[in-house]
């Protein structure tokens, strides 16, 4: 079952992708992760790594444990067994905000924005971990706090420009169509200036045009800011076009890992997707 199609590269070395991007050494490494909820085994002994500058996808059929894996990566779940290594250090159990301070940001499968707040304010909340002035001075909004806010606003405006959402800057997020809400959520994640960006089904529920836009933005984020991206996605076409390497999960186990081409030709993967009876 664990026949890895991916040829192992030493952790410190990088590789060059087909389209000429240079990928660095290992940024995050999942070592033998197992996650149980009582008697249910959501993830069973999975190991893989994410390298600096890479777009890494996790795919698999419904209930394969993809979102659980993302939650382990984001620090929301603590694995029952196994270790998460981030930037050369083993990560102890952490609070989500501590993980965020380490340079991780994520989006959610079911959009989790503040519906009554404007696009601008929502993205601004993404910068909360980067704000240095205290609650009191922010409340009085004088001196350093005022100066700091305009600096953050500048960053947020750059993101608004980047995602081409100027027209909805002041619109309450609840009034926006789904595709745009997804884009705002990406904006909020970007506002944290993450080193590693985790995207939970960024294309779910979108039409073709919206998917194309989103793919473009994901590639641009990776290219422009050098952000490493790990994403979960259902749409095979999108994943294969977008990512450098793909992990395939099925029933909580890893059944494939490698470049899109390697994965596409992997028998176990084909079986899982086409629903061949397991013997």
């Amino acid at each position, binding site marked *: 079952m664990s026949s890895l199609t991916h040829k192992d590269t030493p952790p410190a070395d990088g590789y060059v992708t087909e389209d000429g991007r240079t990928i660095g050494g290992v940024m995050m490494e999942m070592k033998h992760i197992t996650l149980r909820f009582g008697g249910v085994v959501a993830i069973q002994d999975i190991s893989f790594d994410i390298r600096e500058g890479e777009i890494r996808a996790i795919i698999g059929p419904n209930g394969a444990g993809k979102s659980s894996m993302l939650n382990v990566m984001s620090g929301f779940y603590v694995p029952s067994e196994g270790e998460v290594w981030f930037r050369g250090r083993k990560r102890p159990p952490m609070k989500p905000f501590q993980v965020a301070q380490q340079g991780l940001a994520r989006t959610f499968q079911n959009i989790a924005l503040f519906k009554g707040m404007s696009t601008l304010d929502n993205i601004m909340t993404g910068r909360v971990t980067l704000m240095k002035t205290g609650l009191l001075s922010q409340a009085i909004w004088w001196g350093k706090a005022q100066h700091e806010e305009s600096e953050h606003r500048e960053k947020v405006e750059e993101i608004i420009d980047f995602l*081409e959402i100027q*027209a909805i800057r002041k619109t309450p997020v609840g009034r926006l169509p789904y595709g745009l809400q997804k884009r705002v959520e990406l904006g909020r994640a970007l506002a944290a200036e993450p080193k590693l960006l985790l995207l939970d089904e960024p294309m779910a529920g979108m039409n073709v045009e919206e998917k194309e836009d989103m793919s473009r933005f994901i590639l641009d984020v990776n290219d*422009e800011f050098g952000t490493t991206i790990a994403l979960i996605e259902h749409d095979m076409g999108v994943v294969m076009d977008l990512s450098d390497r793909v992990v395939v999960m099925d029933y909580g186990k890893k059944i494939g890992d490698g470049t899109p081409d390697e994965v596409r030709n992997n028998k176990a993967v084909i079986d899982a997707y086409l629903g061949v009876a397991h013997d």
Partner: protein
Amino acid sequence: MADQKAASDALVSIPALLARNVEEHGAKAAYREKEYGIWQSWTWEEAARQIEDLALGFLSLGINRGDFVAIIGRNRPYLYWAMVAAQSVGAVPVPLYQDANAEEMAYVLGHCGARFVVVDDQEQVDKVIEVQDQLHQFEHLVYLDPRGMRKYDHSHLHQYSHIQAIGRAAYDEFNPSLERRLGEITYDTTCVMLYTSGTTGKPKGVVLSNRNVIETSRSSAEFDHLTADEEVLAYLPMAWVGDFIFSVGQAYWTGFCVNCPESADTMMTDLREIGPTYYFAPPRFFETQLTSVMIRMEDAGRFKKWLFHHYMAIARKVGPAILDGKPVSAMDRVRYALGNLFVYGPLKNTLGLSRVRVGYTAGEAIGPEIFEFYRSLGINLKQLYGQTEATVFITQQPDGEVRADTVGIPSPGVEVEIRDNGEVYYRSPGVFEEYYKNPESTADTKDAEGWVATGDAGFFEEGSGHLRIIDRAKDVGKMADGRLFAPKYVENKLKFYPNILEAVVFGAGREMCTAFINIDLTAVGNWAERNNIAYASYQELAAHPEVYATVQKHVEEVNESVAQDEMLSGCQIHRFLILHKELDADDGELTRTRKVRRRIIEEKYADLITALYDGSKEIFTETEVTYEDGRKGSISATLEIRDVKVLPTSQRMAAQ
């Protein structure tokens, strides 16, 4: 103004006007652009410096006199500067429509043989790279927004700011050459080349000289008493002659400020923030705006609705008269002032038109009700008639003589005459030099004495001396029995209904008229929502029986109105259908300025036209559509065809 007149001998080019503006209005804002949520602005001095840097940069890339510099992108100060920088080094700017697909772009770039292309962003860069193999003279591509461009091969690709930096660094080396080239510019030097959108055939490159542009800008600015304090919003395509005259010609002549919106989507917000004093918009824009106001009023509370309708009735009654300075009773003035306080003022503010002193619309006929609506609010909206070949102005309406059905009196310096076939001809200092590399078309359009055929049929109204345009001269035809056929006249009447976005009327050489209709998805969609009618797509809504019934009512009303006109009573519509897709410029059915391309539609939908005339009740059809990214697909539908009540026409007319 007196010294301006005296100096006008030297003011023979846009760069010369720039130098004068730096002297006279140096510290005043020349350009603004909203970026990162803030209006960034440049004074005339700063703009001049930016232009100089770019011009020097062009020289360092080896630009020659007479080279063509294509400019593609949305309205941005940087791209306007690129035009002036090109002029400064003796090159000719050629702005292109930014939504043109790669194929159209290849034609224009190849036709003028552009050596330099200046573009906005990656999207445009990709299009140019896609077609560069077809272009023999193309050498350098300059882009503004570096996003996504890092991995491109930069041997012929340059970032705008880098070119400027190189130019600045090489100031000592290239400044003498820049000075020399600036000195060589004369009144006869080509100022700009603009490609006409072309309702028929390939686009033609209209060459406009400095004389054309500056004379026209001067006389039109004087006509409307434009000053250096005007604010305009530059949001219409840069490739269109109107934008060139308003945002470059008149702006440089008078020294007013050009404001560029943040993006196409934010235009309405930006309009409100800027509050232009001098404003141009095509009729379609006013229509859309009015439709959205009306839709929102439908959703408003009862009191607000009452307030709106009550005061709008007063406005319609006395508003235009007050605007024209005609006598109005004191009581009505008081009521209008109240209305202004409660309704018109806030509404104008919402529309971003509070400060408009001079507003123009042109390009198509505007619905009289739409026109009156804006006028009654106290917005000085006027009509003008023009074309690229005339450097815009042929006729325009003076203040106080504004009506919905005319296009005004000849602009200053323009002679207009109607030839025997009813076609409008004109001669003016704005008359274009030639169509580039197309002497045949030039000769067909412009005669030896400088008279230009507009291609439009029209007549001067007795009494007022105002020009009225009926239709395109070549579209005005005869029906099978010899009655006059003027499709646009009928189409315009149809399009005045908010529910109808587009109409195409057929009937030349036939015994009766028929029509294709496009519904307006915003207006009809809102109606559907309010009446709990579910629909998934344009196609589904268009085929809805109630929508058909509404449109049929509109068509019958139009027939009644057409029947009253003795000359054109033959143009009543006997049968119509609602098209299953919106007519689109990407499919070649409309021009980029959204004018109907009759020939192409006739060819493409030949099966539907046949069905309109053979008496069938419905027709199955399949149509190819082009998506924005150039891919093709097809949609199929079964369309219903309806017969419409027609009023009897007098056979007397037919006999003539």
